[in-house]
């Protein structure tokens, strides 16, 4: 008996083994089969026969399934694979939530990360502010790119010698000789001037003189006064706001009369604003240059081409090229001063502050080298903070591994995870930025004392700087997040979720390398700090070859010049005053004098560069300079003031004079005389320089500084009685003095500042590195809790466990020293080359730095390991 339904069920079963034959598709074919069966039946076939025919007509399950399978493959290929959107807004809240949760769950680590980054960012921002400030010098001048300073290249007579000092007639001559020079001004000063207004009198070292073109060239904003007529009267003066307030308070300064040096009057014609401007031209009072000629150096010097004492600035036409002009300037000086072999060179105004290292320039110029050093140190500190972030985040990755696994399982691609983790690290960095901005406010005053700058919070109103800061923190976030992100996003979900992977397995070598990197930077900075302070104390305590103690010095200018003799006599009446003398320049840095002296038996071509100073009687005695031959200047020899020279041993050596040198003929500055004494070599220049030949000559007209040697006891009483004597003499000048040893001390302010900077950066670097170490140590202690418990149960001592845990870190620190030492050695050796007199690079400095680094690291790590080692094993082993 044929059962159609049963046969159809059997037939349908043959489709079941093919996965493509879904119910719907089989139903289609079943219907077809039934239709075909009915059609066969209608043709008159028996049931069984009809069914077999229908089945044959439909075909085998195998062939039909094969056709369907082709469709399936087409569909699979055609369907775009499940790809999450580039950015899924729905997930943002989830990202924020997970980020905050991660921060909340690991408060300690997040604190370390954020505070480290904040400190690093704050330091970087400080340095940025400082660099921006250094860079801004002279750029407030709207025509800055057309203004140049003219300096002398003296290399024809003295190697590598330059001078910014030029003669008075040069500015006008240049302007008339070169059509491309449209404006030119002299800028200079002679002495400090005594300025009096009613009962107010001040010595003004910032009294400067310039030509009327000055105002057409530079963009100092005039607060009061008419720019057209400001210098039309030669006896006029303009003041800075600060100076105006000093003399006149609230009164209107315009039209007021100031008395200069008790001898002539000037009228205030303007007030200038220069407070907030970074200018390489510094002044408190500015008068026409003519006054200087008339009152100080004599009008006949107006066209003296040998009187090299002033600065000259020129402004070119907008289209003119400085290079062309520089070429045209070759040999220019010969036109006016035949013997002058120096060349004139144009220096861009904007180069003066950072790129200038010219002779006779102001000492407080910036230095591009310091810009680099500062920037590099700041980047180092930030890098150390970034390393903390990398290390702690990867070390803690176990906590995020499951999250990564799950996200991947539900469809997150690696790019999405990368974006998520970058987002997190940027979020952290932005968070750090907020803290860093507060830190910045707090650190600014400290930094100002360190750098000698007057940086203000003006950055708050500077959108470019603010954007820069945000950019910096995003960059920091990216660079510190790059390793953790790539590491975390590379997890394979199957291994994580199965639990076969221990995710603390961030490459331990890499982590160690990072720690080594951090600590080598720290050790390097410590070594640098120690070495700089060693060189500094060496320079400050070296025996200079003369005595600088208990000597005060005063400036003698204006009328004081004529009264010098009387003041001297008066001071000497005090039994506590031992000597009084005077000279032209301070003994801290006696300058070279151009030209070669004449001496007995000098070969015609022989040349000798020589430092020179003009001195008074008793100079040798005041400074206790030892003489190896001959005698000091003496009043008993009438010729001493005219033709006597005292030279040092180096000069004798260089001249090749046979002993005795005393009595040999010697001439300089067209004065023919003889050597009356030979001094022992002494350091009259900073220790960067070797002791050069030196000559002293008496020259009463050129004395600018008076020195008073006082007894070492009762210094304040002596000073008080000197002040009294000064006042009684009614000199009309305030009693202003300085201690000479301070000046010597200040000679090395640059080095001292560098030392302080290194010290601060070293402290910061060590601190941040230790923060990171602390985090790592606590993580590893935590990870090994069970191991520690078992060890303790088996009888390990606390000390033993601490040693075990510390071991790994100590190895890193030791390696860091190995890296840092050679680098420090070469860098410091290069630095020491700047000094002609220098200390050696002592091995103990390296050992001490290593010990310091090790001690700090050990202390940091032990805080954690000790706690772990002390924990009762019962607690750690109770579970499981």
């Amino acid at each position, binding site marked *: 008996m044929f059962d159609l339904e049963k046969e159809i069920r059997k037939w349908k079963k043959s489709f079941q083994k093919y996965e493509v034959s879904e119910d719907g*598709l089989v139903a*289609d*074919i079943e*219907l*077809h089969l039934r*239709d*075909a069966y009915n059609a066969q039946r209608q043709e008159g076939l028996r049931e069984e026969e009809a069914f077999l025919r229908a089945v*044959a*007509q*439909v*075909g*085998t399950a195998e*062939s*039909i399934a094969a*056709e*369907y399978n*082709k*469709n399936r493959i*087409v*569909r699979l290929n*055609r369907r775009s694979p499940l790809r999450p959107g580039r950015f899924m807004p729905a997930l943002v809240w989830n990202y924020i939530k997970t980020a905050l949760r991660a921060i909340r769950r690991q408060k300690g680590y997040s604190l370390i990360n954020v505070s480290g980054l904040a400190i690093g960012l704050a330091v970087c921002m400080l340095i940025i502010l400082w660099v921006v400030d250094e860079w801004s010098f002279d750029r407030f001048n709207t025509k800055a790119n057309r203004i140049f300073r003219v300096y002398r290249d003296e290399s024809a007579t003295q190697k590598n010698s330059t001078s910014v000092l030029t003669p008075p007639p040069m500015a006008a001559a240049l302007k008339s000789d070169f059509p491309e020079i449209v404006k030119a001004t002299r800028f200079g000063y002679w002495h400090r001037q005594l300025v009096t207004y009613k009962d107010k009198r001040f010595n003004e070292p910032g009294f400067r003189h310039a030509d009327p073109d000055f105002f057409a060239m530079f963009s100092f904003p005039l607060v009061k006064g008419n720019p057209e007529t400001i210098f039309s009267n030669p006896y006029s003066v303009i003041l800075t706001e600060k100076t105006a307030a000093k003399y006149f308070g609230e009164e209107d300064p315009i039209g007021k009369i100031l008395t200069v040096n008790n001898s002539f009057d000037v009228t205030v014609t303007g007030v200038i604003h220069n407070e907030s401007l970074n200018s390489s031209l510094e002044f408190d009072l500015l008068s026409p240059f003519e006054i200087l000629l008339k009152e100080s150096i004599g009008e006949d010097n107006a066209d003296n081409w040998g009187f090299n004492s002033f600065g000259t600035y020129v402004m070119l036409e907008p289209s003119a090229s400085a290079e062309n002009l520089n070429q045209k300037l070759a040999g220019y000086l010969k036109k006016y001063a035949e013997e002058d072999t120096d060349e004139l060179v144009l220096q861009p105004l904007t180069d003066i502050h950072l790129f200038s290292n010219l002779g006779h320039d102001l000492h407080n110029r910036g230095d591009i080298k310091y810009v680099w050093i500062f920037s590099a140190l700041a980047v180092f500190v930030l890098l150390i903070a970034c390393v903390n972030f990398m290390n702690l985040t990867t070390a803690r990755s176990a906590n995020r591994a499951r999250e990564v696994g799950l996200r991947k399982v539900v469809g997150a691609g690696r790019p999405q995870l990368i974006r998520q983790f970058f987002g997190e690290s940027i979020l952290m960095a932005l968070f750090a930025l907020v803290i860093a901005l507060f830190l910045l406010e707090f650190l600014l005053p400290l930094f100002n004392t360190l750098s000698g700058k007057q940086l203000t919070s003006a950055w708050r109103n500077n959108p470019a700087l603010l954007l820069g800061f945000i950019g910096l923190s995003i960059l920091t976030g990216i660079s510190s997040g790059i390793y953790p992100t790539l590491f975390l996003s590379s997890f394979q979900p199957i291994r994580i979720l199965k639990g076969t992977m221990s995710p603390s397995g961030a490459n331990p070598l890499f982590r160690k390398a990072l720690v080594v990197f951090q600590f080598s930077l720290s050790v390097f900075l410590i070594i640098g700090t120690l070495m700089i302070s060693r060189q500094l104390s060496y320079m400050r305590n070296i025996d200079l070859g003369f005595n600088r103690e208990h000597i005060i010095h005063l400036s003698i200018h204006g009328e004081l010049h004529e009264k010098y003799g009387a003041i001297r006599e008066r001071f000497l009446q005090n039994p506590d005053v031992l000597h009084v003398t005077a000279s032209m320049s301070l003994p801290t840095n006696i300058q070279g004098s151009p030209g070669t002296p004449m001496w007995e038996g000098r070969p015609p071509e022989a040349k000798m560069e020589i430092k020179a100073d003009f001195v008074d009687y008793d100079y040798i005695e005041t400074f206790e300079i030892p003489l190896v031959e001959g005698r000091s200047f003496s009043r008993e020899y009438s010729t001493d003031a005219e033709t006597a020279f005292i030279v040092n041993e180096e000069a004798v050596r260089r001249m090749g004079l046979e002993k005795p040198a005393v009595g040999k003929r010697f001439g300089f500055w067209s004065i023919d005389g003889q050597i009356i004494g030979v001094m022992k070599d002494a350091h009259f220049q900073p220790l960067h320089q070797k002791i050069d030949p030196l000559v002293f000559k008496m020259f009463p007209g050129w004395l600018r500084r008076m020195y008073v040697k006082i007894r070492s006891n009762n210094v304040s009483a002596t000073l008080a009685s000197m002040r009294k004597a000064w006042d009684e003499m009614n000199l009309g000048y305030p009693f202003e003095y300085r201690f000479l040893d301070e000046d010597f001390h200040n000679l090395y302010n640059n080095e001292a500042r560098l030392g302080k900077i290194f010290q601060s950066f070293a402290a910061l670097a060590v601190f941040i590195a230790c923060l990171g170490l602390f985090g790592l140590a606590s993580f590893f202690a935590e990870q090994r809790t069970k191991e520690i418990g078992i060890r303790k149960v088996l009888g390990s001592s606390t000390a033993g466990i601490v040693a075990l845990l510390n071991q790994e870190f100590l190895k890193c620190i030791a390696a860091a020293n190995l890296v840092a030492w050679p680098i420090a050695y070469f860098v410091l050796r290069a630095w020491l080359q700047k000094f002609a007199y220098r200390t050696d690079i002592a091995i103990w400095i390296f050992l001490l730095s290593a010990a310091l680094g090790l001690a700090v690291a050990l202390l940091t790590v032990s805080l954690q390991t000790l706690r772990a080692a002390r924990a009762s094993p019962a607690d750690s082993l109770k579970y499981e």
Partner: protein
Amino acid sequence: MAASTRPIILAILSRGKDYGYSIIQKVKDTSGGHLEWTDGMLYPVLQRMEMDGLIQSQWKLSRENRPRRYYTITEKGCKELASELVSWWNIWQALTRLSAPIPVED
């Protein structure tokens, strides 16, 4: 599967909706009853054409009260048919041009 199957199905459906068995009978009729393949193998072709968006299907009860999947041609299908006709026409023309002219005698 012959290249002509798809245009033929489209052409059939362009005359109105139809169901599988009926379509296949018409295909068989047009190809003169000679098919190298079995009826069942047309169903994957219909599925494929539906995947490609040329036809649509819907289950409905027929007049005999049987459930049937009715296929209708889509707009895309109409366009496809038109372009198929053009290319078949082109092929036909090319073939006639290449072959020797055959006198029409009937």
